[in-house]
């Protein structure tokens, strides 16, 4: 685990499994600006190894969503852009910078807010997604219904009438149908009860185990995220200040207190680190 004092360069990650696997997604020196002046993130380096579940943590406004947008593209009308750095997918630079082309290449985002088409039915929401070229649409559809059986009965319902949890499930299901190389999930737990959020979060490693999907997960709720993630980056005011394997982050109480808001009785004990054990604390 490494901590940066103040700016410059990526933190050297721990010598363990992440580096031995091929990297499906890499962001090098990412800088995002809005309206050409306001810098949202700067010099951000991160990577998602094949089949890994990587978390991107940090407080509100730290730049997590901007990082995800840097990886998945901006529309010209949004006045935001990746102004420095590059994104590599399977080691190759991305072709194009608009969300559609990037999604077609395999980087699929589950957004934080507008994540489903409210005026379309659940079934239409799934139909309307375009699958990556050469992707396995049918197989991924079956997977989506296997992981989220509740969706099967909701086919005809307009997505605007779904509950928060159903909506999140549909959003993830839609992303799966696109058969992504890497799935970006923005603030899954927002607006959901802790129990529901945990249940949906737990589907991610399950999907990973079933299909080898790689996931980059943005979460304000660090506790919940670290339940499922292998590795985490911590953003603060637009920069990566800390990164490391799950176990090491959790074992360090100073880190927990300073960056994750976990103190005293709510922090993890040194032996924690087993998945699914004990559920959520606090």
């Amino acid at each position, binding site marked *: 685990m490494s901590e940066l004092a103040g700016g410059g360069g990526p933190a050297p990650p721990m010598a363990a499994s992440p580096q031995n696997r091929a990297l499906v997604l890499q962001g090098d020196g990412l800088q995002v600006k809005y309206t050409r002046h306001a810098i949202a993130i700067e010099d951000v380096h991160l990577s998602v190894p094949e089949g890994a579940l990587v978390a991107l943590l940090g407080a509100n406004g730290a730049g997590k969503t901007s990082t995800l947008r840097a990886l*998945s*593209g901006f*529309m*010209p*009308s*949004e*006045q935001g852009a990746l102004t420095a750095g590059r994104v590599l997918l399977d080691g190759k630079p991305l072709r194009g910078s*608009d*969300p*559609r082309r990037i*999604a*077609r290449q395999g980087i*699929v*985002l589950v*957004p934080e807010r*507008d*994540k*489903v*088409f*409210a*005026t*379309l039915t659940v079934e*239409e929401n799934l*139909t*309307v*997604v*375009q*699958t990556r070229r050469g992707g396995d649409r049918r197989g991924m559809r079956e997977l989506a219904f296997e992981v989220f059986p509740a969706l099967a009965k909701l086919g005809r319902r307009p997505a605007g009438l779904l509950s928060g949890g159903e909506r999140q499930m549909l959003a993830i299901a*839609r992303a799966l149908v*696109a058969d992504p190389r890497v799935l970006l999930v923005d603030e899954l737990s927002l607006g959901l009860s802790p129990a529901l959020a945990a249940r949906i979060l737990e589907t991610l490693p399950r999907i990973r185990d079933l299909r080898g999907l790689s996931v980059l997960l943005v979460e304000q709720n660090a506790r919940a995220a670290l339940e499922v993630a292998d590795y985490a980056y911590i953003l603060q005011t637009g920069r990566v200040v800390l990164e490391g394997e799950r176990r090491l982050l959790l074992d360090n109480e100073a880190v927990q207190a300073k960056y994750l808001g976990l103190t005293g009785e709510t922090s993890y004990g040194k032996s924690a680190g087993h998945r699914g054990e004990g559920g959520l604390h606090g």
Partner: protein
Amino acid sequence: MPGSVQNAIAAAIPLAATYVIAGLAWAIIFRASKIFNFATAQFIVLGAYLAYCLTRDAHIPVWLALILAAAAMALIGALTQTIFMRRLLDASGDGSAQASFAPVILTFGLAAVIEHVLSISFGTGPEYIASPFPKTIFHPFSGVVLTSANVIIGVIALVLWGGSVLFIRLSKWGMQMRAAAEQPLLASQSGINVNGILIGAWAAAAVMAAIAGITYSYSSVVSPDIGNIGLRSLAPVIVGGMDSVTGVLPGAIIVALAESFAAVGFGESVRDAAVQVVILAVLVVRPSGLLGGATVRRP
């Protein structure tokens, strides 16, 4: 039935048919992109003049002229979207004032250019396109006279309307269009080619405009006055609900009847004003129209 009522109804039927086809031109673009394309009225006029040119200069049979003119209009519509509208992206694509402002103003400029280029090219004089329809006459009920042109154009209107409604509701592209209309960003992120969808919508709308203008000319004249009818055809869309393609039919029937009765009762010159009064009334009483969606009202 008293004679004037019969006359009004008889006049309303072909008028409603034209209003359906022209109304589709407004409604399709609005449904796809929440843009009020003021140039629709001039698209209608342009379509009619293009067909006129083809029949006059190239001596092409009338039905072929319609197809070629419609194709030319489709191209113009597509180019308008991809060259101009696409560049006018604003911060929010959700139909707020900021988002729709610049595209609307642009269509004003476009309408002005088309109108006056046509005026330079053709002047004000009425021109004629021979009607390709047989001149048979029907008497569906007492006192009401319809020509075969009225009937055929009425059928065309119903087919175009029904086809549009079904296409949007059931087809894959219709689904993508509805998605893109609701949230362009999410649609792009889902892999949908939003610009491509909009090009299709603009082309389809321009074709509708051409058909409306040309079929109208068959039983009337080709002249700049068609532009007034084009602007009046906005009323069926507002009555039916601006973002409802389905609503164009009931809207057209209601407006055509209202206009015809007003004309019979108060004279030809009240047509424009009567229709606009209907529009204002709808805006005040029920802005979303008959079938308009929740997107219309303020949150």
